[in-house]
């Protein structure tokens, strides 16, 4: 079949990102031709300010050099005579200024925006420019070598970045701003005042509430005359008063435009063969002037160009950060609020810190941070995910480090040196990450993970990496979308996949992949385990577990160690054991020359260094002695830790060990989205550390307190109190119901702590407090346990399954 022709007008970030996304989805669908105005490949426009300030070079901000186009069979037309001057929709061709024609089946308009030039007398003088592209930067750099005074018209984000850059190049710079408050689109008065003060200290001059009347000069601009008669010396005038969507071509072709080219939720214009993305497009009344929304638009547009046709764009929440080194400023969402909103403000003028958060209905609507922007990414995430913050409201202003997170909170990334280690797992420094971001053109957390490995192992440093992204890219870093795709094989989110499985009765991994149009027929090591779990959870009695889609630990029922041997943990219910149990474990240890044994944090005994081929026999012997698998390797119910309790302890109020055993008998063998730990403490002294477990019971004289969502791992998180009950039966019912709700609702590999932080404790409580719903959840848990409580060890001690653990051929012995 002959390929269709796709033509893109505009060689900027929006258009090329769309192409990258398209090639990822349908590499061979189109013959692609790109028309560009500038004589370069595609570069990262948002990093022009650091180039001007001398902190980066042009080469460092290139995203796609010219070889990228040829490598991907894309025809790039730029330079003289290759400017598109007309779109003829009736014949489906675009016409360039040298008169040649290029036909298209589909057209993508990504013409971006144009700087708005004030129609002042003298605006055509030499030395009057905008701040938009590499050429403007070159002009500014050249001027700063020859001349002394510069005037920037416009005290918005771009104007201030330009002014700062010129000042750093040795010019004396005055900023003229029409209003009496800088960056009024992003800052409230208090923050704007602090910003102005700090910029004045650095040497910038300001003319506020000032309007320019005329630019005066012979050939080159010499003086700027203001309305009030003030005259300012100016060898260079930079106009940064705003941008306008570049819609000229579309308008001339009769495509419906308002402020921008009007597109629907699929990024399609009123002509069904013509798409538009980026700053030229107007979606639901908004034409975005930032880069972050482009990435979301590009994904949606590519989805439709690739003829998958299900993604929709619903608008973006944006945040801003000024790229002036040494000034920390963050703004997001509605930072002014209205009468239905509440404000929380923290201000310390001497320390130069100002924070304001706007709340509405217990959700963050907007934020302005000055001086201390460490928590910008966190507030932004809470805002985008519309999280209920009522529970953390009292400490919200003090940042993420004050909500029970002892991980990486409270570290100021800006004050870190480049050689400071960020990712302890993979040994990646701050410098490595920021270098990779700018040199490789990375925008998202996933990009950084792929290229540097930072935050790709335990994830503790995710917040730090996002801060570095934000600091390096400024306003335009692309925060990971709140609805993330499950993995690179699909565009569907975890939730969508789960609902498709249940509502369409999909019962095998291939069925799911086919139904949801998976990109890779076999999926990958991320999605296959997730799908296997989702299917297992949805159809406990029918689904046939796919071992090949499980991580090795769950296939081998042991923990793989770095030398390829395994560690084996027999289950000891509630941590209780007998002398016979210990003897049996000791015998196994001797028989198979286990090099090391250890008592685990969950009150079990771990046998390290078991060879794969010995596993079936080790299991067989343990099984014989009455042990079942401890599931210490799985995304599963792990352990129930207990204290001595009322049987022995003089403080104990209840039989905590006995209850722990019952909980473990109820829940052992259950597959979960992630590992899951119980604990039962016999009194509030809490020796079993129940308040850092997924589900913790603290016995008190009058009953049992139930706590959920604790974690003692990567991020220490103390549990939330859920309820108090009076009997052991109630404890078991609540425990089973909580497990089942977590199993059915959380994303694969999401522990209870982040799950609760994502959806909030309130909806979980509401569900479980409803007697009917709780009993139904408990019932479903019991049903799935019938299928799950088959000892995996016993099943694998003989026959074909045992053979799997042996070499297929031994050429040594």
């Amino acid at each position: 079949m002959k390929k269709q022709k796709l033509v893109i007008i505009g060689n900027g970030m929006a258009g090329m990102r769309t192409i990258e996304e398209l090639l990822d989805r349908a590499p061979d669908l189109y013959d692609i031709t790109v028309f560009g105005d500038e004589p370069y490949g595609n570069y990262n426009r948002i990093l022009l300010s650091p180039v001007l300030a001398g902190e980066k070079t042009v080469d460092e901000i290139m995203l796609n050099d010219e070889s990228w186009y040829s490598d991907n069979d894309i025809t790039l037309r730029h330079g003289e005579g290759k400017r598109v001057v007309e779109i003829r929709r009736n014949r489906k061709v675009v016409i360039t200024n040298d008169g040649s024609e290029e036909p298209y089946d589909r057209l993508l308009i990504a013409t971006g925006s144009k700087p708005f030039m004030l129609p002042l007398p003298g605006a055509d003088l030499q030395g009057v420019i905008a701040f938009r592209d590499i050429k403007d930067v070159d002009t500014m750099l050249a001027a700063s070598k020859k001349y002394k005074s510069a005037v920037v018209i416009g005290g918005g984000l771009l104007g201030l970045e330009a002014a700062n850059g010129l000042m750093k190049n040795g010019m004396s710079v005055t900023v003229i701003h029409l209003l009496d408050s800088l960056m009024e689109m992003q800052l409230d008065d208090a923050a704007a005042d602090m910003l102005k003060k700090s910029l004045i200290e650095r040497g910038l001059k300001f003319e506020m509430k000032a309007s320019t009347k005329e630019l005066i000069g012979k050939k080159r601009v010499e003086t700027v005359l203001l309305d009030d008669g003030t005259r300012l010396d100016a060898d260079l005038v930079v106009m940064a008063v705003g941008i306008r969507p570049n819609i000229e071509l579309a308008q001339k072709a009769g495509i419906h435009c308002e402020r921008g080219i009007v597109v629907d939720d699929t990024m399609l214009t009123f002509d069904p063969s013509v798409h538009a993305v980026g700053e030229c497009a107007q979606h639901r009344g908004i034409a975005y002037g930032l880069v972050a929304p482009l990435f979301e638009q590009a994904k949606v547009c590519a989805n439709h160009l690739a003829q998958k046709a299900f993604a929709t764009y619903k608008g973006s929440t944006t945040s801003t950060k000024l790229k002036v080194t040494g000034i920390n400023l963050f703004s997001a969402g509605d930072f002014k609020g209205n009468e239905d909103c509440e404000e929380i403000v923290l201000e310390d003028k001497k320390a130069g810190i100002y924070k304001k958060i706007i709340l509405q209905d217990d959700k963050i609507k907007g934020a302005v941070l000055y001086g201390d922007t460490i928590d910008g990414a966190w507030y932004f995430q809470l805002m985008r995910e519309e999280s209920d913050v009522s529970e953390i409201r009292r400490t919200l202003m003090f940042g993420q480090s004050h909500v029970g997170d002892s991980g990486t909170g409270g570290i100021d990334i800006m004050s870190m040196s480049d050689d400071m280690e960020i990712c302890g797992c993979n040994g990646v420094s701050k410098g490595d990450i920021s270098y990779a971001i700018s040199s490789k053109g990375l925008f998202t957390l996933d990009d950084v993970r792929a290229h540097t490995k930072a935050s790709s192992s335990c994830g503790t440093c995710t917040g730090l990496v996002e801060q570095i992204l934000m600091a390096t890219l400024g306003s335009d870093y692309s925060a990971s979308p709140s609805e993330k795709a499950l993995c690179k094989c699909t565009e569907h989110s975890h939730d969508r996949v789960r609902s498709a499985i249940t509502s369409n009765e999909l019962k095998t991994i291939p069925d799911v992949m086919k139904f949801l149009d998976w990109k890779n027929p076999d999926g990958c090591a991320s999605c296959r385990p997730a799908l296997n779990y989702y299917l297992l959870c949805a159809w406990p009695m029918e689904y046939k577990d796919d071992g090949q889609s499980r991580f090795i630990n769950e296939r081998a029922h042991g923990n793989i160690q770095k030398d390829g041997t395994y560690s084996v943990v027999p289950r000891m219910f509630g941590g209780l054991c007998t002398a016979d149990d210990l003897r049996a474990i000791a015998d196994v240890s001797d028989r198979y020359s286990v090099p090391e044994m250890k008592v685990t944090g969950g009150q079990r005994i771990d046998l390290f260094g078991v060879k794969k081929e010995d596993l079936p026999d080790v299991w067989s012997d343990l099984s014989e002695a009455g042990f079942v698998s401890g599931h210490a390797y799985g995304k599963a119910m792990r352990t129930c830790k207990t204290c001595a309790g009322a049987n022995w302890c003089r403080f104990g109020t209840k039989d905590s060990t006995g209850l722990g055993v019952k909980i473990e008998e109820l829940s052992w063998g259950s597959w979960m989205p992630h590992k899951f730990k119980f604990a039962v403490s016999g009194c509030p002294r809490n020796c079993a550390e129940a308040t850092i477990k997924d589900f913790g019971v603290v016995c008190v004289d009058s009953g049992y307190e139930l706590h959920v969502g604790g974690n003692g791992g990567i991020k220490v998180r103390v549990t939330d109190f859920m309820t108090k009950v009076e009997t052991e039966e109630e404890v078991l019912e609540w425990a089973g119901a909580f497990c089942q709700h977590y199993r059915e609702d959380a994303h694969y590999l999401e522990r209870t702590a982040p799950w609760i932080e994502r959806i909030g404790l309130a909806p979980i409580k509401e569900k479980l407090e409803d007697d009917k719903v709780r009993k139904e959840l408990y019932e479903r848990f019991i049903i799935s346990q019938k299928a799950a409580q088959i000892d995996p060890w016993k099943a694998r001690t003989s026959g074909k399954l045992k053979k799997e653990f042996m070499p297929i051929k031994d050429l040594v012995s």
Partner: protein
Amino acid sequence: MTKTKNWVEIGPLKDIQPKGARIIKHVDGDIAVFRTSDDKVFALDNKCPHKGGPLSEGIVHGCRITCPLHNWVLELETGLAVAPDEGKAKTWPVKVEDDIVYVELDDDVVMVEG
């Protein structure tokens, strides 16, 4: 001494699960034999170029393997790590005849077997 090559019979294809792997014990280190979902067979040193992880224990998807230790992804055909990672695991020629898998090994290795 120039080594001669020799096709060594490994075993029936059905003994390797689709999307699975088995290992050959070998004096120079284990070799992993993989079978993909569409019954292609590949043999690689059972050692990830990253930190020596046992590739045979990874997840097979398409003609790729994800190492179980740190999630490096290697092409089964070439043994090369998928970008942006860089590295290579040694590959061995494989053939399947009458549902029997053969791997071409150096002759002196076969001597050890005898």
